[in-house]
């Protein structure tokens, strides 16, 4: 078991460092002069070259690629996200503030998604191929086809504009979070229904199930003790991937509903070429992805210790 966990940790470190290098390289080689963009964002006016050079020197863009990279990575390892190239304020507080909006929204979306998809998938698999099953698949396909931003706009149109029941833009009151969470939740529900449904059907095909029934084990016990654990394995894997998409969806929904959070934080940072800010968001999302993968791997090792040899 220890070597397996070690293997997983090694993978996490490699992926994290890969992401860090990739992000930095991306920013470094991006066309256009980052220093000029930062200077413009900072002083909000067209500037002479010497001001731009002064900004370039200050932000450390004139050193070589690897020195700049280490200058950034070093403090990052001590969880010091450095200072914003534009506002000069430390990155972490702003990032943390953005997270306090995005993560609750993502979790609310996840909760709604699960609340809708779990019962729907279980009902659908009662009679595979039956009317309810085909309906569930159709809803899931439709849900997956509707872009989150369009769904958001439709909900705003219906509930905020036409009916005036719910606030649309901004995040002043908790009520502001309802529409964005529902938008996110419906999208998540669509893909989760499909994942849970295929997980259950796959688990139903296990070779030992007929023998259990022939042994007289109650159908309910078979479902709870045998089908559910086997269904959980594929569901948890894809669930891990879904969490990554969840973050992406949250970013999009925040922009639609004009809510503060990682979405707007990232978009403004990009336009202003604020290196530290952009990297902070990307490293954060990468960390979330790696932690989720770590969790699913550990879940595997607990539920079925045989797994471990095969997966690369």
């Amino acid at each position, binding site marked *: 078991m220890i070597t397996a966990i070690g293997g997983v940790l090694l993978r996490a470190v490699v992926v994290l460092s890969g992401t860090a290098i990739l992000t930095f390289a991306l920013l470094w080689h991006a066309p256009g002069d980052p220093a000029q963009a930062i200077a413009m964002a900072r002083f909000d006016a067209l500037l002479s070259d010497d001001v731009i050079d002064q900004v370039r020197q200050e932000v450390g863009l004139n050193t070589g690629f690897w020195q700049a990279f280490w200058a950034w990575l070093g403090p990052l390892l001590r969880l010091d996200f450095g200072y914003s190239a534009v506002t000069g304020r430390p990155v972490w507080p702003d990032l943390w503030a953005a997270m306090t909006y995005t993560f609750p929204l993502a979790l609310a979306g996840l909760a709604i998604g699960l609340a809708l998809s779990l019962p729907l998938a279980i009902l659908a698999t009662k009679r595979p191929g039956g009317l309810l099953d085909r309906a569930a698949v159709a809803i899931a396909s439709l849900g997956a086809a509707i872009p989150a931003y369009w769904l958001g706009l439709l909900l705003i149109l219906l509930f905020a504009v036409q009916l005036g029941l719910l606030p649309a833009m901004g995040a002043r009151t908790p009520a502001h979070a309802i529409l964005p969470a529902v938008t996110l939740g419906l999208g998540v529900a669509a893909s989760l229904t499909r994942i849970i449904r295929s997980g259950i059907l796959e688990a139903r095909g296990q070779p030992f199930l007929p023998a*259990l029934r022939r042994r007289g084990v109650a159908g309910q*016990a078979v479902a709870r003790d045998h089908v559910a*654990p086997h269904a959980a394995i594929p569901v948890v894997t894809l669930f891990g991937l879904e969490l990554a998409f969840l973050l992406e969806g949250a970013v999009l929904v925040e922009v639609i509903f004009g809510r503060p959070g990682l979405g707007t934080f990232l978009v403004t940072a990009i336009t202003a070429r604020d290196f530290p800010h952009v990297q902070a968001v990307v490293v954060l999302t990468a960390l979330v992805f790696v932690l989720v993968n770590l969790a699913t791997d550990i879940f595997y090792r607990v539920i079925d210790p*045989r797994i471990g040899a095969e997966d690369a």
Partner: protein
Amino acid sequence: MTLSVTGLSEIRAGRTILHPTSLEIEPRGRIGLVGSSGSGKSTLGHALIDDLRAQGCSVAHVPQSPDEALDPLRSMAFHWREAEVALGLVPGSADQAGLFRALRIEGGDLRKRPWGWSRGMQQRFVIAMALIGSPDLIVLDEPTSALDPIVAAATMDLLSGFPDGKDTAMILITHDLGLAARRVARLLVMQAGRVVEEGRTADILDRPQTSAARALSAHRNWIALPC
């Protein structure tokens, strides 16, 4: 008491894969259901189990390989307790120690999962589980096909000597007449979903009437040892 089924048949996708068949099984009887693959012997076996169970008899089934009987995610103790509950017994009441000793798996660690045991011990665990609450009938489907020879022979010897004192009857479903010949009193030879010949084992081995029985008898073992 004598178990009897009448007119068992099965039609799948428009084809009769099992023609109406009736069968009498005396207590402690040992019957071999023999036929080449596709002869319908497993279909008859499964139909038999469901029919007798509908009549209220207690029937146990041992599938071909442990993979078709045990859940790799659940411990052996869990399987045992679950089998007891399924038969309506209080957990722990079945004579586990006796059954394990009889099938020589008393050393097995019940906390482990199936893949922690050898295939031979897994198969014998499934047989022990089938014998909980001494059922009226135990049906074994090709019990040696997933096992290595030495373990398979030991398992079959344990089975034929078993269950002394109880009147559990046994049905052995196999394509290998050589395996059945030494362990069952009566043989039913099947071909194309029909019982084509039935009788005492010695009679069928020495004077097979139908082509199926002749082929099975002629090919029952590879070579006779000269000594």
